[in-house]
């Protein structure tokens, strides 16, 4: 019998700590599949964040390091400069990347560091129990925006792809989502592209992945998919913001 579906070799056969309906496990699996397909497991160094995915190093058959909250891209800068032959991936949430780590994000991108950033945007702080994130939508109720996010009080949700697209150095910026199969497949393709560009040494690649957080959104996994589709997609438009690698490829 043909095996048509199996666990990627780069993903450890362990139970993950993520909640039911959380997008992290999907995104982990996509990353592991892409690592398998590109045959780069033994070259990987994964830099984790502080947040729900802090334990990412427990789930991959790859070398991995923790980083202080928000500092993944500074850590990755050190790793990649010291070992340019390694494939370095930063895996960060919205609080980590777009609040406390904004400076590190913008400056790593602006230096054109040759690593890949996977930015998981679920519009809320997960690990600390559902506080407002920099990407929380206007009107969205969280523990720290109990009446809904008010732009007068808390500003607007940050569009990181669009922000980084103002910089000269990045080579690839795309926003994808993992709310349904079709989009999951697209996300995988984008991830593969980002890692391929890095392997070629093209420069900074940034992938924002819209993801569900049923626990802290306070709705069922099924309704979370609905909510992401209805509200997040409206504000965070999917698609390629920049792809200088494509031009590089056709040269």
């Amino acid at each position: 019998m043909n095996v048509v579906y199996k666990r990627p070799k780069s993903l450890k056969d362990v139970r993950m700590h993520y909640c039911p309906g959380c997008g992290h496990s999907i995104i982990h699996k996509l990353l592991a599949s892409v690592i398998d397909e590109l045959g780069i497991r033994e070259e990987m160094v994964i830099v984790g964040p502080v947040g729900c995915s802090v334990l990412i190093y427990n789930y991959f058959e790859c070398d991995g390091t923790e980083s202080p909250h928000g500092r993944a891209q500074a850590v990755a800068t050190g790793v990649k400069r010291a070992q340019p032959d390694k494939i370095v991936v930063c895996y960060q949430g919205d609080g980590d990347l777009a609040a406390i780590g904004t400076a590190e994000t913008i400056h790593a991108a602006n230096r054109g560091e040759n690593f890949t950033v996977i930015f998981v945007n679920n519009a809320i702080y997960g690990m600390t129990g559902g506080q407002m994130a920099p990407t929380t939508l206007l009107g969205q109720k969280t523990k720290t925006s109990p009446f809904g996010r008010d732009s007068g009080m808390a500003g607007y949700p940050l569009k990181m792809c669009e922000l980084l697209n103002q910089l000269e150095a990045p080579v690839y910026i795309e926003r994808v989502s993992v709310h349904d199969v079709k989009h999951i497949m697209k996300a995988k393709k984008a991830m593969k592209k980002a890692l391929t560009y890095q392997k070629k040494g093209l420069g900074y690649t940034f992938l924002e992945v819209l993801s569900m957080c049923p626990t802290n959104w306070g709705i069922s996994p099924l309704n979370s998919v609905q909510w992401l589709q209805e509200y997040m997609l409206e504000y965070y438009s999917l698609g390629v913001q920049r792809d200088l690698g494509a031009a590089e490829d056709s040269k």
Partner: protein
Amino acid sequence: MVKKILMRGNEALCEGAIIAGCRYYFGYPITPQNEVPAYMSRRLPEVGGCFIQAESEIASINMIWGAAVSGKRAMTSSSSPGISLMQEGISYLAGAELPAVIVNIVRGGPGLGNIAPSQADYFQATRGGGHGDYFTPVLAPATVEELTHMMVDAFDLADLYRTPVIVFGDGILGQMTEPLVLPEPSRRVLPPKDYVLDGARKRDPRKIMSLRLSPPEALEQHNRKLRKKYEEIIRKEIRYEEYMIDDAQVVIVSFGTSSRVARASIHMARERGMKIGMVRPKTLWPFPAEIISELADNHQVRAFIDVEMNMGQMIEDVRLAVSGRRNVYFYGRTAGMLPDENELLEKIVEVTNECCLQKA
């Protein structure tokens, strides 16, 4: 013949680091250590290294983490406010047991303070500095030559004990030009770096972290292991200089730049017939408590004077070592106002009159 050269402290320490095999420097401008990044930006590419001017001290210390998990010798430098910003990262490095060298060319504080020489970061440097249960070795040079040589020692200690190491200078040491002989590369045998993240090729994947959630006793066990390491450092790595203490009735305890002023005052006092000596800690942590304790037991020693460029910080360690057996006096100037050899002499005369003459 050994070649003597003239170098400014901030640049000489870079050469010391390069001789030690440091090839990665990440830092952010702050006075009075700006010659360090300037020198490294020019010098490191010549030796196949890498310099990055980071966006902040916070980024600098975390870039160091990245180079450290890669198994490379890396350093950063800053001055007091910048070192405060690095404390989170230093705590993480200590928790994850990663080697790093951090140079603090101390300036006046608190706050933005001023840019003048100071030793006011003694507490921060010797008490761990960041959050959590840890210490970092702290090397305190008194001359530009010693600063340069201590860089080699600092990198060795960092690798030997897998710990961040602080080199504690001040604005004078950084800015002063002095003759020196460059250090030799170290021959110290160091443990293999079996923790390096260089791709899980023909081995199990490795992970580096400071988070220890489970089982519940995991962090306590880890902190006990760290404590054992710190005890080993205390046993093996205390460094200090004894200066004219054989017949001393009053012992000065002073380090770095202030010890140079103390030396001048000791000469003046001895010319006047007073028997004064000095213990100069070269490691601030671990602190040379034992020699001070021995001196406190010595009948000939009547008192101690702690001399620092702050309002009195090391004096707490001196008092702990003396444990009430002798009086401990303080003389210090702070925030760029340097200790004055005549002022210190006055203090010495006062202490000698009070503690030595009446007993005679």
